[in-house]
């Protein structure tokens, strides 16, 4: 339960996303090699395909990219944008790390919350960011998720959440751990009010986020190929000293063991979510 790959260097893909540089079909165009099919793909093609390789591999998306992809144009209204955590344990190096991540990412925390419309249907939306300390959950992330579910319960709105997380943020120690209980209690209240919560688990969803609000949705969807699990695969391998089964902790593996409802490729993702919202609005008779 921890985040991994802290502040890994921005790859070309992410740079491309942030600058949205005009892309040309010339030989000098930046390419990205797909970790699945190992073929180079021009970035322009990837962007046009919502960061999905023609082979089906789903690259990670930052939270703003995902928001733009999923919400109706201009419908997203951010909630609690300024909410940020401090350094409650005075953990060595944490304040400096947070400052760096904030200035590099332009975000204040690892989750963005707000209201949005999907094909005109209003909902609350949270999107976690793999590029902000690997979406790890500290006190601010826990508070934002909790407030969103409380907000949604008060206004009787469904919640759609995109999860990506290395788990609880260890630099905030026990207080991070407690966010698992806090968010779960807020999800429960929202659920007990008869309201809908859809989670879309994206790569990777692990540790304390898997063991709390990610797995607590009424409808659990996952992007193909996403790593979804509680303990890290390496930890499991070291602990058990056994070879891991093929595809261990992949979305497909989790689906086959009965822990998600369906896989939901990015292509058509919005339509599926929108349809699920519509199915929960009661129909006409």
């Amino acid at each position, binding site marked *: *339960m*921890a*985040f991994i790959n802290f502040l890994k260097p921005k790859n070309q893909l992410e740079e491309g996303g942030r600058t949205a540089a005009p892309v040309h079909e010339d030989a000098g165009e930046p390419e990205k090699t797909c970790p699945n099919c190992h073929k180079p793909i021009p970035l322009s093609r990837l962007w046009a395909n919502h960061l999905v390789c023609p082979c089906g591999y789903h690259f990670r998306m930052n939270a703003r990219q995902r928001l733009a992809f999923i919400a109706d144009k201009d419908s997203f209204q951010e909630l609690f*944008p*300024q*909410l*940020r*955590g401090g350094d*409650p*344990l005075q*953990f*060595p190096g944490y304040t400096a790390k947070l400052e760096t991540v904030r200035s590099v990412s332009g975000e*204040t925390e690892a989750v963005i919350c707000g209201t949005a419309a999907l094909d005109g249907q209003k909902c609350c939306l949270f999107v976690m960011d793999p590029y902000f300390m690997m979406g790890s959950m*500290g*006190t*601010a992330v*826990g*508070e934002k998720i*909790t407030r969103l579910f409380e907000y949604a319960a008060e206004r009787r709105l469904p919640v759609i959440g995109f999860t990506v997380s290395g788990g*609880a943020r*260890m630099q*905030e*120690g*026990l*207080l*991070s*751990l*407690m*966010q*698992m*209980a*806090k968010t*779960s*209690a*807020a*999800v*429960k*209240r929202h*659920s*007990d009010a008869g309201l809908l919560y859809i989670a879309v688990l994206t790569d990777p969803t692990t540790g*304390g986020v*898997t*063991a*709390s*609000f990610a*797995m*607590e949705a009424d409808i659990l969807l996952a992007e193909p190929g996403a790593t979804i*699990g*509680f*303990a890290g695969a390496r*930890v*499991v391998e070291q*602990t*058990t000293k056994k070879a*891991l*089964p093929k595809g261990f*902790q992949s979305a497909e*593996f989790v689906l086959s063991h*009965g*822990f998600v409802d369906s896989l939901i490729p990015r292509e058509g993702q919005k339509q599926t979510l929108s349809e699920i919202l519509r199915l929960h609005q009661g129909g006409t008779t």
Partner: protein
Amino acid sequence: MSQTPYLLVKQARGSSRPTGLDYITNLFQGFLEFHGDRRYGDDPAVVGGVAWLGGSPVTVIAIEKGHTAKERSARNFGAPNPEGYRKALRLMKQAEKFGRPVICIIDTSGACCGIGAEERGQGQAIAENLMEMSTLCVPVISLLIGEGGSGGALALAVADRVWMLENAVYSVISPEGCASILWKDAAKAEEAAASLKLTAQDALGLGVVDRVLSEADLGRQPFYQRLRGMLRQELQILAADPDLVSKRYSRYRRMGTETLRG
């Protein structure tokens, strides 16, 4: 404090401290063990059932590590599988149905990191406990008696009162895990243990636990007698509280909010 946090972690892992079953045997009378999660199996790392606390029936759930090497192996070293958490939840729901309070006794390095545990939804099992315990309509008291390892401990510690023994530890990650991830050096566990603020006094200061229990006479009758008295007194207070569930929500709702801005 006379001992370093890392020393406390090592001691909490040792086999000399009383284990969950020692507490069950000595705190309660007439313990009847109930096995199984009714879904998959029976997890020997989690022991649960009903017993008498003074004149009142209670549901008791404990994570058991065992003392000897053989016992430890049989109990999976106190690392529960999903079925352990599901058994615990089943017994808590049973307690709710029959109006019995729940006492959880926690001592684990963490939830089992196994292939089967992942296949059977370790994360889902813990998540469900967190969610369901938050609205359980009967009093819940959790005791952290040794190791409080992350989500695997929290899955039995969403309670109205969380008490911790003075030399127990409670942490989001093991010091070794933290050191190897953050500093790529498991040898810095000593430093990590201090930074993680995982002692009972730290947890009290952070508002994560409500009471630190003295270990005077630990494992001997005066210790159990004292603890029994405290549990009975607290359960009386909780049982009389009409706002139990909303207060439990508030207890967790405020955690970590003090240092937030914006």
